[in-house]
């Protein structure tokens, strides 16, 4: 959960939130953190009512077969939107900062091959790889933030709420949608060994992601000022480039490691959910064709739907929050409400 939220957020959220909320952008992340916890509770209580079923299964029970399938297919599209956007962010990052001459398809195909391997081997492999990457990820972030401290000017965080409370709330919509990606849990609930610990560990994960993201926001704003941070696509990468401690410099390789490894895990999870949901939905015996089809659907559209990084920025700021909040908060919320109304139906599946 931590990785799904933070892997892409670290580079993009500082620029997006600072553009709207300026020096108080860090507050928008804390608001998103609070909403994220509410979101998790909602998902947890929904999953707890059907501990052995995933969303496609209990959506059919609650909404009827047809509507249930429509909703499930909607979620497949939702995960596809996430993975396509992440793939585009991934190639934009590498093309803009590291390898401008490499065609985007090379990065996307490479990443999808790795993700496909993980999907074929199952969710456990993805989780184990995540366990391996996570400490390195956190350590790299901690090193970067610690080395940035001496260049921070806390005066850049003043005046507090200069653009007003509304701008902070507006800025928080994007990180709220980011934190809401923990909705993947409604598809993975039955696969979790100790389901009763989901809430406790999930809250810890969200708090850790939120605090880390808040620090990253504070670091970029205090070093570059709110206006310049708001103008940048990848403010945190620029911060890593700025760090110079005695002879230690050019630490952007750490950001590249963080970014690539985090994205591999995130895309693998999304790809896994897309594949498994479609396989179950249509009761398919062979998932190879679904894998291949989805791989093509992931590789080709990023370059057709988004002509430039500007399009990605526009999508993330203006379109993504409404899509995200619908699938992450609204639909699970409505389904939970339905489970409360239709108590009898639900009780049978405990």
């Amino acid at each position, binding site marked *: 959960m931590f990785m799904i939220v933070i892997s892409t957020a670290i580079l993009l959220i500082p620029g997006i939130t600072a553009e709207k909320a300026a020096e108080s952008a860090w507050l928008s992340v804390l608001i998103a953190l609070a909403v994220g916890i509410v979101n998790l509770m909602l998902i947890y209580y929904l999953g707890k009512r059907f501990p052995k079923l995933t969303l496609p299964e209990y959506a059919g029970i609650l909404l009827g077969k047809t509507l249930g399938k429509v909703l499930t297919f909607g979620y497949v599209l939702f995960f596809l939107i996430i993975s396509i956007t992440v793939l585009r962010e991934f190639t934009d990052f590498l093309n803009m900062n590291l390898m401008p001459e490499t065609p985007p398809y090379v990065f996307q195909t490479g990443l999808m091959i790795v993700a496909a391997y993980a999907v074929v081997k199952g969710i456990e492999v993805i989780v184990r790889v995540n366990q391996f990457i996570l400490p390195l990820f956190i350590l790299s972030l901690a090193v970067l933030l610690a080395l940035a401290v001496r260049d921070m000017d806390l005066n850049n965080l003043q005046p507090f709420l200069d653009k007003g409370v509304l701008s902070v709330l507006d800025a928080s919509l994007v990180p709220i949608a980011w934190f809401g990606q923990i909705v993947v849990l409604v598809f993975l609930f039955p696969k979790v060994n100790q389901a009763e610990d989901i809430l406790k560990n999930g809250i810890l994960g969200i708090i850790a992601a939120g605090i880390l993201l808040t620090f990253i926001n504070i670091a970029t704003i205090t070093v570059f*000022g709110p206006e310049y941070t708001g103008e940048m696509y990848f403010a945190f990468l620029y911060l890593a480039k700025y760090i110079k401690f005695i002879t230690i410099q050019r630490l952007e390789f750490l950001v590249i490691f963080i970014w690539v490894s985090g994205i591999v895990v995130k895309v693998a999870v999304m790809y896994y959910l897309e594949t498994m949901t479609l396989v179950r939905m249509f009761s398919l015996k062979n998932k190879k064709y679904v894998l291949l089809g989805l791989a093509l659907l992931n590789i080709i559209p990023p370059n057709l739907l988004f002509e430039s990084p500007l399009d990605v920025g526009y999508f993330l700021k203006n379109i993504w929050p409404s899509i995200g909040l619908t699938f992450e908060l609204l639909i699970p919320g409505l389904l939970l409400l339905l489970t409360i109304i239709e108590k009898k139906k639900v009780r049978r599946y405990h």
Partner: protein
Amino acid sequence: MKKLRFRNIGTFSVLFSLLLFCSGCWSSKEVETLAFVTLSSFDYTQINGQDFWTAATLTMKPPSSQGQGQGNTSGSNNNMEQLIIGQGSTMQVAIRNYTAKLPAVPFYGYATGFIIGEEAAKKKAPEIIEHYARYWQTRPRDIILVCKGEAKEILKAGGTTDRSFSEEVSQFIDLQATNSGKSYGMYFSTFVSWLTSTDRDAVLPQIKIIPLEPDNKKSGDNPKTEGSIIEGLGVFQAGHLVGWLDQEQTIGFLLLTQKINKGPFSIPVQKDKTMFNYFLTHSTYKVKPVVTNQKISYQVTIETKGEIDENNGLPLTKEDIAQLEPVISERLKKILTATVNQAKTYQADFLGFSEKLHKQDPKTFHALGSEWRKAFVNANVEITVKAKIISTGRLKEKLVINPTD
């Protein structure tokens, strides 16, 4: 089962490593095919109403050609760097035109920064900065300088020592510019941050050409007669160069905007027709915006510490020091007042007073709207200086030299 899982994770790791390290082969380049750019410059003018850009760059010479042709260079780059110039109707065309003169691909990843010429700084600084900020090889700690006249002349003149010019300039900005009181150690990201802020103006270190001392001139048919040093500051208002700060005003800028703890700044002071030197080693500053009846004023308090070791015969007893401190305070106050007045003349708040007002009293600042510079010009600035002498070097009151008979 466990074995199988580890094998899966192992295979995944190999695939992941391949993705991480091999996917960029398209963008790979051999070192021999790169021309390492070390320092660039941009000049701008208009000819018959048309934009005319000059972009110049110093690139590292290939090791095989370094050291050849001593005394036969166009600049002071001591055979380590070569100057290439291109011209055109846009910045990019000018860059492309100098690139055409290079057999290798210019690589800016290890560049130290760039210099902006006077005309370019006056008319096109925001455009240059934006262009540079968008470029993927730009680093936030790149240095940025401004000069009077054409910047390419600075690259031609080179430095004053035997080191490469770019190294000389970047080391001075890193270590000496602020600490010596000669200029200010400005980096690209800080400059952009000041330019984009809504409540302050910016400065850039000034680089200028000086005649070289005979010892530093190169022997041979074409001796080096000029070099470049960093001294003073260029003042920007709304992103455009509007003027310059001399040596004393630069010290004033530093005292009004920085906490000095690495000096010393050498400040000549006069008492009863005797000149002595105050070595300012530490200082703190406090700028307090005061708003009374919608009138803005600033109370500035500067506290300095320093030593006197060039006393020019002045006795340095405890009583003498007590008398010298007010004289030093008065001298510093004069420097600071001159700096504030210069800022008001340029209508450029590079001292960050409006920024302080914005942070302390955002309501008043927002009420000013776009008139915040005007408000700074009209504001009364009250300066208080408390200078302390904390050391007289390794000697006590006075070194008594026995007169000859």
